[in-house]
């Protein structure tokens, strides 16, 4: 992605006359940097606590940088009776399938709303935006009821299906396609292509950037989801990480702080990676969705 070749540009700008530090702004820079360090301290403490031998994690003064490297706590988590790796795999599976599903439903719906003329368009579009107003955590009772009645409670599907209705996705895809020129699609139609061919060969290839942004957002949301899996899963074998960590923390008697922090560190690592890769996409889409939503 675009991250790697950008560095020289930053480097040049850092030393260029116009972008260099204005002395008047120095106090602001120092204050903002101090604030940023405070923002990062909890993560530093998490990491250094996870590196402690399991008995010494509580040691004061608190260490924000690890004083030694030890994998004891990590091994303790992996060897615990709680199937941590299984939960990790569940989280990955749920997030990956949800992301693929949301990308598919949003891209097709966005194409229809932006490019096709049909009756009931505004009603159906309004229906697709209801999700902006209705948080899924408030639909837990009927979801639990419905999944229990159909027997898919406590399965991976109970965690994937509710995530597939994405108002943000439909909105983003439609908005993006409306801003793209439609001449290419019209030309393909005149040349005798059918709508499926137009979508697959002309529209979809343009949708790369918004699909990337949507995928990053959806993956993160799914990975972070806590309330739904808390109700919809009971067996440790179907749990995802956020719920698994709760049962791990509840069994705290056997679990040292270092082990808990090791588990949290492992759980958040994919988010750090996703963020470092997709920083630009995420920040752009947040600012845009915020201002237009």
């Amino acid at each position: 992605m675009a991250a790697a070749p950008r560095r020289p540009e930053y480097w040049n700008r850092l030393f260029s006359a116009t972008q260099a530090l204005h002395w008047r702004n120095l106090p602001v820079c120092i204050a903002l940097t101090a604030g940023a360090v405070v923002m990062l301290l909890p993560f530093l403490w998490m990491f250094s606590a996870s590196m402690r031998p399991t008995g010494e994690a509580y040691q004061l003064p608190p260490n924000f940088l690890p004083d030694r490297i030890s994998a004891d706590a990590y091994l303790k988590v992996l060897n615990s009776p709680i199937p941590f790796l299984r939960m990790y795999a569940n989280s990955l599976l749920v997030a990956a399938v949800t992301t693929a599903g949301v990308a598919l439903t949003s891209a097709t719906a966005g194409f229809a709303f932006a490019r096709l003329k049909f009756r009931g368009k505004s009603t159906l579009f309004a229906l697709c935006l209801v999700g902006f107003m209705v948080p899924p955590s408030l639909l837990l009772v009927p979801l639990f009821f419905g999944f229990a009645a159909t027997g898919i409670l406590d399965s991976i599907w109970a965690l994937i299906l509710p995530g597939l209705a994405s108002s943000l996705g439909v909105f983003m895809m439609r908005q993006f396609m409306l801003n793209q020129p439609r001449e290419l699609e019209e030309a393909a139609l005149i040349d005798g292509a059918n709508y499926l061919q137009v979508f697959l060969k002309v529209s979809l290839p343009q949708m790369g950037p918004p699909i990337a942004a949507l995928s990053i957002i959806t993956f993160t949301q799914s990975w972070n989801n806590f309330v739904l899996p808390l109700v919809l899963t009971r067996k440790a074998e179907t749990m995802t990480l956020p719920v698994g960590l709760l049962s791990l923390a509840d069994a705290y008697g056997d679990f040292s702080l270092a082990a808990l922090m090791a588990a949290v560190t492992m759980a958040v690592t994919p988010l750090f990676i996703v963020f470092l890769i997709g920083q630009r996409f995420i920040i752009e889409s947040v600012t845009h969705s915020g201002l237009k939503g």
Partner: protein
Amino acid sequence: MTRAAWREQIAAMAFLTPALICFLAFLVAPLIATAVFCLMEIDRFTFGMTYVGLDNFRYVFEDARFWKTFLNTFQFIAMAVVGNVGLGLLLAGLLDRALPSALRYFLRLAYFLPVLIATAFVSYIWKFLFDFDLGAINYYIRLLGLPPVGWLTDTRIAMASVVIMDVWKHVGFFMLILLAALQDVPRELREAAQVDGAGPVRIFVSVTIPCIAPALLFCVAYATIGGLQVYDSMRILTNGGPGDATRSVVMYMFSEAFGAGELALGAVSAFTLLIVIAVIVAAQMWISRRWIR
């Protein structure tokens, strides 16, 4: 309709089907079911339903604990909105100036990182930072010779602690949106005000604030709707305690629906929250039509 129009209509329906099935099954149907459940008594084992009219509403609205959690939730919202939007605006104002781009990159990354990491993960870190005897925060307070604070155990302070973590977690989001709004304020307006002899405070109040009012309004509404659903942080940090000091409406919904097995009572509290959210969204739309632009 002509044949071509029919073809387009059918194609549109085909493209919309995957998304519409998801929206109908996991958003619209649960929404309707929530309203229906409110009027029913649901057997917790057989899921059999009998119509009981408004009895569920009467029970919930006469439950002092419901109003206590409602009050708690609004107390949380009041503090979290002021903290998130206020600090977000301050940070955005500080960032809205010429800074070396490497520093800007680092600051954006540091302030935004917690937004992406789920509450369900970071709450464990904060739980130990807030710990009375062994927590990092009280360690430094003791070092200053002050009495340690019962961050999570003192009835009067526990809610503020939940808010502190919430602001740490979400302020980066509001900062980004307000920063984008500030950067859209026309430079000429501020310069004109400066020429007319206005000081920086006067410029901020009379020029900047009216220009970013739509973004501010969005932030307040967004933070309020998010605050209405607060659950994860309270569940892990304090589990509602001490007493009921940090128990939110969603926690009440959980304990009624999935603790006591009274699904209908859970539906009533969820339905009440959905109505409140609808009122807030309507008010946001009304205010922006009436007062802004």
